[in-house]
């Protein structure tokens, strides 16, 4: 039972990170139909920005995350303008390929600029809390609460603000939204900005319990894709549920089945879901 609870907490912490990263990816897909394979690279850059804000400029952790989100939002807009905007009418294969180009550039660029060594991100939340015989790292609690906060903020933004509603409108009905006269360009840039900022927050939250290095986004990249496909491309609740589902599946399959299996499980699950429901769990009208 203790093991179960401990792993449950671990799974929830991991799931919050997955969900945050997946949210950004699914937003871009839902609004722009772009499967952004470079998302993991944006995530990695986000971690580096926070790292340097912390270590080189001594900016407090929480503020550093904010700065990182802002910087990444800008990078997101630049990527959208330079790469995806010119391709807006191209077939989907072109988006995928262009995204791979961006991925190459960001990842190798990070290596060239900052070297390939592992870096440790200091966080003020280093202690371990002991509740009911469970040992929980403070940073993990920070990850969980901050993620919930960010998700709530995103929800509020999409539902209650005008710019947010325009994003949602396009996501739900593209032709309808364009009829109403929504400026697609603005929405497009805004979506990329939010997506990259979410990736930055996710990376900055998880970095203190892991490390910062140029290929840190690689492993996550495939996983978040599995998540958003699982949840249904473009579905926000799908991304959140999918993120937690994958994390818990990984943690518990390694606990109760086999460890070698846990990495494959996400993908096997994904394949099974898609084989049964070709457009994912939460998609509207398969």
């Amino acid at each position, binding site marked *: 039972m203790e093991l179960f609870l401990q792993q449950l907490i*671990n799974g929830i912490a991991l799931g919050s*990170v997955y969900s945050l990263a997946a949210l950004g990816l699914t937003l871009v897909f839902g609004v722009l139909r772009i499967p952004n394979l470079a998302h993991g690279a944006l995530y990695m850059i986000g971690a580096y920005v926070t790292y340097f804000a912390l270590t080189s400029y001594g900016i407090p952790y929480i503020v550093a995350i904010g700065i990182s989100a802002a910087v990444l939002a800008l990078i997101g807009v630049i990527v959208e303008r330079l790469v995806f905007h010119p391709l807006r009418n191209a077939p989907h294969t072109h988006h995928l390929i262009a995204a791979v180009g961006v991925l190459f550039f960001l990842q190798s660029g990070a*290596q060239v600029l900052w070297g*390939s*060594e*592992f870096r440790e991100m200091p966080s003020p939340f280093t202690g371990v809390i002991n509740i009911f015989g469970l040992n929980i790292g403070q940073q993990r609690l920070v990850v969980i609460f901050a993620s919930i906060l960010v998700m709530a903020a995103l929800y509020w933004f999409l539902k209650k603000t005008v710019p947010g509603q325009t994003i949602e409108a396009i996501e739900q009905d593209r032709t309808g939204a364009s009829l109403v006269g929504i400026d697609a360009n603005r929405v497009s840039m805004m979506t990329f900005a939010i997506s990259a900022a979410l990736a930055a927050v996710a990376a900055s939250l998880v970095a203190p*319990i892991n490390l910062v290095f140029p290929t840190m986004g690689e*492993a996550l990249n495939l996983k978040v894709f599995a998540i958003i496909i699982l949840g249904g491309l473009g579905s926000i609740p799908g991304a959140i549920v999918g993120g937690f589902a994958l994390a818990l599946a990984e943690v518990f399959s*390694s606990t109760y089945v086999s460890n070698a299996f846990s990495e494959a499980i996400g993908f096997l699950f994904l394949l099974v879901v898609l084989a049964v429901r070709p457009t994912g769990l939460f998609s509207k009208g398969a």
Partner: protein
Amino acid sequence: MRVSGLGETMGKEKGMWKLRRKLALSPLILAAFFLAACGGGSGGGGEGGSGDGGEVVNIGYSGPLSGGASLYGENVLEGIQMAVADLNEEGVEIDGQPVTFEISSLDDRYLPNEAATNAQRLVQQEDAAVVFIPHSGGIFAAQSINADRNEFLLGAYSSDPAILEQENPLTMMIPPRFDNYMEPFVGTTMDEFGDSLGLIPTESEYGQEWTDQVTEEWENQGGEVLSNNGVDYATTTDYAGPVTQALSEDPDVLFVGGPSQPTALVIEEARGQGFEGGFIVMDQAKVEEMEEFTSEENINGSVGVMPLIESTEAGTEDFVARYEEEISEDRIPVSEVGYNYQAMHVVAKAMELADSTDDPQAIRENIEPAIAEVEDEYKVINFPDGFTEEGHLAGPVVATFVEDGEYTELEVPQEQ
């Protein structure tokens, strides 16, 4: 229809314009390719050297210089570079001719086929007679070409004894065989902490082999091996899950290891979750590097390879100082740097004795006598005292057991 017809016409003109723009752009792209290619030709190249020393001897290197394993690849290269700098400064004469050593390094992204292609290139384009490769996949691939297709001496930096089993006549295995660590590592931790062993190693090829060997040895010495909770250290986001899982079986000792930094995280997580036993640390992880990522206390009770900086060889101290001065102030030289540094010195001496810079056979035959000729100042860590039939730079090896923040020496018996 008039309107749509007009639109069509305009569309076509636009199309034409676009085409023109594309055609205009294409020479630019070609030029970019060309520039890239030319720039590439002059890059890479030599390291150190006064430049006036007669014939140039190219030493080949193919290793991961980009991607996740690039730090490791760079460390190995640094060792060779430092040795070459020594040699060029000292001035080496081979067969009566002064020579200058240069290093041609190529990136293989840790891929075996790239390593083999690079090795061919180094031999054929750069006339390298010796090629260093620091990963077993690349070594195996190179072994399939170095004896018959292109002759070169393979400087194999991998502690995997399987590279000796190929009976390749032109392989020089550089580091100590990892299987020799098993007995003292297992014995020490079992005596100290108890007889159940939990496993959280990295899931690389190397990790797998270590895991098999540790498991076998632990069981041989009468201990109990618990379930394997290994995860790929390169792709894991959070180690809490596997650590919780491993600790739930209440092990006395944990087997961990992969790159140093993630290994430190695993150890920290285990201590954070209340683990008080010992660690067997795979030789890929360096205790001295781990110290920078977790507190010293956490590392107490670990057995692992001897940190180069703690080594007592004659040249170690100077070497560490030079590394800080010439290579990096932030990083400390790890054993990869040292082993390859020594190996390069052995190779140079073997060339001197063979009176040849380009006959891999002759160089190979002179490795054994060359070992004794290497000056003490170039000995920095577990310097070999012999060269085995199978092609291993063997010798007495000292590992370490960390006790109360002290690195105590641990003799590693050498049975081949």
